[in-house]
């Protein structure tokens, strides 16, 4: 009797343990005709927008339930990478700008080309730049969800105090540096502009404005060893050298956005998504103005970074996942997204609706940029050479090396990284 009770206890323990294991592996299935999808994203601020869009989808697709996983940006890459390697990955997920080729080449993103053709989805609404960033090896792996474009933000109060005209679409680099110098007041600790080593907002756009590129069209070598790169790096490091911008060290310790918010810098190159940050301080938002990035020797240019939605290549219910993707990227889905502010939708029509959330700013700047923005440079392992060129360009920002030397060092290491992809 006693023996038996022991055996049964053991058996119970085994059952409990095994049960626990099987319970872990049975998520993400379908039960009673209802399909469960998971959708992973990384921006807390955009969660309400996404939640609302998904709710609208669930209204019309009663048999599909969507779970949104909102992961803090700092952990997103690590977590998604681990999930995709193991078996618990989401059906749909966002990719950071420049990282779509990583997922596409890694076999964890589904090829959507035939689905797009079958449903006659109009990709041209996203613009050729966005389409090129969701294309890898001639196939389309994602649908653009939002677009990040930088612009020149300025503090009108500081401009008024200096008796200067606000920046506008006619500005060139020399207008920028001249105004920056006039807006600098060392005695008050006030700088005309922030010149951080921000590739997306400052460095890449300036290279494009000077007529250069970052990566060759075949994606096999770096094109940073060019006069355009030296000019671009020279623009920013020159602003630090002349004292119109805080030093690199100061900008690493105190975020330039914070400096702009506190009136310590008068001008800032920053993404469209920062509009929400200024709006959070209403008194400040009224004194903020926005203009296109000033033109360089090759005219006006900017970077356009697409954040796409990707489908997991191993997703169980790809048809349903595609329905959700298509819904979110449809004109109606994007219009819903636009109505909430947050990340700007990737089509001109929706971007115009998005701008209505920010009546204080001339946000037409951003929808215009969708038309002429150039792609955020990417390759199979963007992160690797991105880190290496950042390290190679640092001495220029520390004023220890000339812009041309820094550019050729960056080109060398980038080409070597691309060669080993």
């Amino acid at each position, binding site marked *: 009797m006693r023996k038996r009770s022991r055996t049964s206890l053991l058996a119970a323990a085994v059952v409990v343990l095994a049960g626990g294991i099987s319970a872990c592996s049975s998520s993400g299935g379908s039960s009673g005709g209802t399909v469960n999808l998971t959708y992973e994203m990384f921006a807390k601020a955009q969660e309400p927008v996404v939640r609302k869009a998904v709710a609208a989808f669930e209204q019309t697709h009663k048999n599909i339930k969507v779970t949104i996983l909102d992961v803090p940006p700092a952990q997103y890459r690590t977590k998604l990478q681990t999930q995709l390697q193991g078996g618990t990955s989401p059906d749909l997920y966002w990719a950071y700008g420049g990282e779509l080729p990583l997922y596409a080449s890694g076999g964890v993103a589904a090829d959507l080309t035939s689905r797009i053709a079958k449903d006659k989805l109009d990709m041209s609404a996203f613009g050729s730049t966005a389409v090129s960033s969701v294309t890898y090896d001639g196939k389309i792996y994602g649908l653009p969800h939002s677009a990040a474009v930088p612009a020149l933000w300025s503090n009108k109060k500081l401009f008024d105090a200096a008796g200067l005209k606000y920046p506008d679409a006619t500005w060139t680099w020399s207008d920028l540096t001249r105004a920056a110098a006039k807006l600098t007041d060392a005695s008050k600790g006030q700088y005309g502009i922030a010149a951080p080593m921000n590739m997306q907002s400052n460095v890449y756009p300036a290279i494009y404005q000077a007529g250069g590129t970052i990566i060759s069209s075949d994606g096999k070598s770096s094109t940073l060893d060019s006069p355009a790169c030296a000019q671009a790096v020279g623009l920013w490091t020159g602003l630090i050298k002349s004292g119109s911008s805080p030093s690199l*060290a100061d900008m690493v310790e105190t975020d330039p956005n914070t400096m702009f918010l506190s009136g310590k810098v008068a001008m800032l190159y920053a993404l469209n998504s920062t509009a929400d940050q200024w709006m959070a301080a209403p008194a400040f938002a009224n004194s903020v103005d926005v203009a296109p990035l000033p033109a360089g020797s090759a005219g006006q240019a900017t970077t356009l970074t697409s954040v796409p939605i990707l489908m997991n290549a191993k997703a169980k219910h790809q048809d349903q996942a595609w329905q959700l993707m298509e819904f979110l990227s449809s004109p109606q889905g994007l219009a819903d997204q636009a109505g909430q502010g947050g990340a700007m939708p990737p089509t001109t029509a929706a971007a115009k609706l998005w701008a209505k959330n920010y009546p204080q700013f001339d946000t037409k700047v951003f929808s215009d940029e969708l038309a002429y923005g150039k792609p955020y440079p990417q390759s199979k392992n963007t992160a690797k050479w991105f880190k290496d060129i950042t390290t190679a360009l640092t001495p220029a920002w520390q004023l220890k090396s000339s812009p041309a030397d820094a550019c050729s060092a960056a080109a060398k290491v980038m080409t070597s990284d691309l060669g080993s992809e």
Partner: protein
Amino acid sequence: MNVVDKRPPAPMHHRAEPADRQWRKAQRRLWYRRPRVSEALWGWLFVGPMVIGVAIFYFWPILRSAYLSFTASGPFGGNKWSGLANYRGMLSDSEFWLALRNSFVFTAIVLLGIPVAVVVAALINRRGLRLKGVYRALYFLPVVTMPTAVALVWKAMYNGQYGIVNRILSAVGLPQHNWLVDPHYALYAMAVVSVWSGLGTQIVIFSAALQDIPPELYEAAECDGAGWYRQLRSVTVPLLTPSIFFVLIISVIQSLQAFDLVFVLLGPNNPATPQAETIVYYFYDRTFLQHEPGMGSAVAIALMLILLALTGWQFRLQRRWVHYA
């Protein structure tokens, strides 16, 4: 009244068995008895959760990392055997050697905190010291504070423009720096934070050991005319050596594994990071930021071997200086 029977006991009816055979029989009986087997099972059941946990979360990852370190694996698996290529790549990467050097420098500075902890522990355990509890609480506070919160506060203190460190330095006329951005200082600035936040635990360990030292020894030392310093050197420190040894082993392991301080105090966008990164940060960067898990695993295995060797070496050396009373 009966007289106590003093005769030897009557011989038993059957022949007595030799003692050894009795023993063997008893053994056999025990061996065949089921409860013995099930006792072992129960034993396993009790240690089971721990053993399973350690196996799943420690040994399996070690084996898996060892395997990955010999493969050219992509960020999403797809492992191809590549022999020693990762190790060769690691050893020929100057960044690896720099990170390793940084970790050793960092560890050396952290170890300088041990004598400080011994002295502070001796000071706050002096007999007759008032407000003992307050001092103990103060030194222990960093231990119960979230490491990230600690790092954020230090980050603010080290700030080149507004930080209190530079304020104090400027008040006494010393040069100021961007402590966490300047590659020359970032590593040392981080080590200082690590010493500060490790002090609390070390003091608790030393305090416990100090309370075990018999007061007579101090009285005897005093009779012999030993002052405070002499008592510390000849009584306190020798009797603390087992605890010092323990703290030393733990500190070396923890410091060589330092990651969170680099991540929070410096972070990936800091120009000082490539020059001041530690070996575990280098591992993180390779594995998760640059998508090279194979190479990252090689780094992890190398670090494990280094730690094993260092710990083994310390155990050999301890015979010369640790006094077990």
